[in-house]
C-alpha cells in the first residue's frame, strides 16, 4: 500500500526526516512510534501530499505522491495531529462538506456520512456545533472525516492524544475494528498503544528508522535480562547462596527485610524462566513464600533502551561534525 524510498525532509538547517525507507502492506496496522520531534508527523505529511520530500520518493497504492498527488489523496483518509476542524460548523454539515470535496455526490455523501457517524457513534451529536463538542467527540469527528469516503488507507496522526483513559480505550477498539477494512498507519509516542493495536511497529528517532518489527518480536529481541522477585520467610541465612546455585541465575540481591520477610531480586539470563526451580527450592528448604513474580521487559523498556542508545550515537556524531566544521 505504501512504498517509501529514502524519504528525506530538510527544513532550514535541520533534517527532520533522514532517508527513511519502509513498506506497508495491504491490511496491515502499522504504528509509527517515536519521541516528540522524531519526524513522525513530517513523514505522514509527506505521504499525504501536504509537504513534499526534499529527496526520495514514495508511492501510495501504486501512485507517486509527487506526480499523481490527487490520485493518492483520493485513496487516503488523513486525520492530522490535534484534529483541526471548522469550529462554527455543525457535525453533519462538516462531514457532508468533507465527503463532497472528497468526490462523493450529494446523495452518496449523505449515506456515507450516516455510516461514518454510526461507526464513530456520533449520531446523537450530529446537529451540534463543533466548537461545543468535547475533545473526545472532536476526535471522533476527525476520524469520521478520515473514513467517510472509505479510503483504502487511513493515516492517523496521534489519534488518542489528549483523551481520557476511557476514551483512549474506546478509540483503540475503534481503530482495531477499522483495521479489518482499511490499511492503517498511525503515529504515536505512547507505547502501550502500538503494543495493543498494531501488527507492526516502526520506531523512529531523530528522523531515522531504528527498528521495524512486530511488537512481540521487538520485545523479544530487545528484552533485557529477566528479573524474578521472591519474598520468603524461614531459615533464610543461606538463601542468597542457594538461589545463586540455580542454573541461569546471574545475580541475586537482597532487598530490605520487613517483619522477618526477606525479599530477593534475582536477575537471570534473557528468556529463561527459573520460577519452577525456585518453587522446588522453597519446598526443599521449607520456606514460606509470599511473592514469586517474574517481571518481563515491556515495549516501553525496549523503546527507552533504543532511544537512549541512539542518543549516545547521535551525540558523538554531532561532536565529530562540529570538529570538522571547526577544522574547515
Amino acid at each position, binding site marked *: 500500500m505504501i512504498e517509501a524510498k529514502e524519504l528525506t525532509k530538510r527544513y532550514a538547517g535541520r533534517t527532520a526526516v533522514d532517508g527513511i525507507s519502509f513498506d506497508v502492506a495491504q491490511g496491515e496496522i502499522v504504528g509509527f512510534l517515536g519521541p516528540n520531534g522524531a519526524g513522525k508527523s513530517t513523514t505522514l505529511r509527506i505521504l499525504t501530499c501536504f509537504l513534499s520530500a*526534499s529527496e526520495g520518493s514514495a508511492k501510495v497504492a501504486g501512485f507517486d505522491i509527487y506526480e499523481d498527488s490527487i490520485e493518492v489523496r483520493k485513496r487516503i483518509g488523513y486525520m492530522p495531529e490535534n484534529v483541526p476542524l471548522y469550529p462554527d460548523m455543525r457535525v453533519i454539515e462538516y462531514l457532508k462538506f468533507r465527503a463532497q470535496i*472528497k468526490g462523493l455526490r450529494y446523495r452518496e455523501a449523505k449515506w456515507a456520512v450516516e455510516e461514518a457517524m454510526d461507526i464513530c457513534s456520533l449520531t446523537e451529536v450530529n446537529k451540534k456545533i463543533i466548537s461545543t463538542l468535547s475533545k473526545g467527540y472532536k476526535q471522533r469527528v476527525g476520524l469520521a472525516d478520515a473514513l467517510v469516503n472509505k479510503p483504502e488507507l487511513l493515516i492517523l496522526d496521534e489519534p488518542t492524544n489528549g483523551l481520557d483513559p476511557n476514551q483512549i480505550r474506546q478509540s483503540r477498539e475503534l481503530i482495531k475494528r477499522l483495521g479489518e477494512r482499511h490499511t492503517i498507519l498511525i503515529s504515536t509516542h505512547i507505547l502501550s498503544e502500538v503494543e495493543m493495536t498494531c501488527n507492526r511497529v516502526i520506531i523512529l528517532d531523530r528522523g531515522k528508522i531504528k527498528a521495524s518489527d512486530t511488537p512481540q518480536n521487538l520485545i523479544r529481541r530487545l528484552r533485557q535480562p529477566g528479573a524474578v522477585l521472591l519474598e520468603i520467610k524461614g531459615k533464610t541465612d543461606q538463601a542468597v547462596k542457594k538461589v545463586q546455585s540455580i542454573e541461569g541465575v546471574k545475580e541475586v540481591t537482597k532487598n530490605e527485610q520487613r517483619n522477618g520477610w526477606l525479599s530477593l531480586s534475582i536477575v537471570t539470563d534473557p528468556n529463561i524462566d527459573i520460577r519452577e526451580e525456585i518453587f522446588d527450592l522453597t519446598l526443599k528448604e521449607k520456606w514460606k513464600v509470599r511473592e514469586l513474580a517474574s517481571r518481563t521487559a515491556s515495549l516501553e523498556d525496549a523503546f527507552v533502551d533504543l532511544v537512549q542508545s541512539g542518543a549516545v550515537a547521535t551525540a558523538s556524531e554531532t561532536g565529530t561534525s562540529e570538529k570538522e566544521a571547526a577544522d574547515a
Partner: protein
Amino acid sequence: MRTFFILFTKELRSFLLSPLAYVLIALFTLLNGWLFVSIVKAMQLQVSSQSLIHNLFASGWFWMGFFVLFPLITMRLFAEERKMGTIEGLLTAPVRTSEVVLAKYFATIVVYAIIVAPVFFFFPLFEFITGEQGAFSSGAFWGSMLGIFLIGVFNIAIGTLASALTTNQLIAAMLTFVLVMLHYFLGFLQNFGTAPDSIWADGLTYFSTTEHMNSLTEGLIDSRPIVYYISFSVVLIALTHHVLESRKWRV
C-alpha cells in the same frame, strides 16, 4: 468545477453565517447613507456642476469607509485556516490548490458585492422619493457600479495574497490596508513635484483610482481601467496560488 462550487458554497455560507458580514453591511450602509444625505443637502445649498453620483464617489469620506472593508473581509481567508490547521485537512483532500484559491476569492467578491450593493439603491430611491429626474445619467450609474466592482476585485486580490502570507489575521489585515492605501496614493503622486505634462505624471494616471472613478462616474466607460484591474487581479491570485504551493517546493 464541482469541487469549486462545493468550496465556494462553503466559504459563502461561513461568511453569511458569521456576524461580521451583517455588521459590515449595516455600518457601511449607515455611513454612506449619512454621506448621501449630506451631499444632497450640500447640493441644495450650492449649485454643483457635477452629478450626485460623481459627488458621492469623489468624496474622501466614501473612500475612507470603503478601504477599511478589504482588510476586514479578506484577513481570515487563509490566515485563519493556517492558524487552526484546517488548511492541512483541506489541502490533503483531493482538491486542487487553484480550486481552493478561486473558491475563496470569488466567495469574497460575492460578499463584497452584497456589502456595497445598498449604496447603489440610494440613487433610484432618491429619484423615486423626490420625483427628481436626471440627477444623474444611467451611464454614470452603471459606470460607477463597474468602477466600484473592479476596484473591489483588485483590492480583494491584494487581501487574498496578504492572508496567504501569514498565519496572523491582524498582520494580514494591516498588510492589506497598507497595500491598498499605497496603491490608492500612487494615483495622487502625479500632483506632487512632477511637471503636469511629464512622462511620470502621464504614467501615474494609469494607476490612479481617483482618475478611473472620475471618468466612470461621468458615464465615460474606458477599457483601460477594466484591463488594468482585471489583469493585476489575475497576477495577484496567481501569486497567492504559488505562495500556497510553495510548501511543496523541493528545496
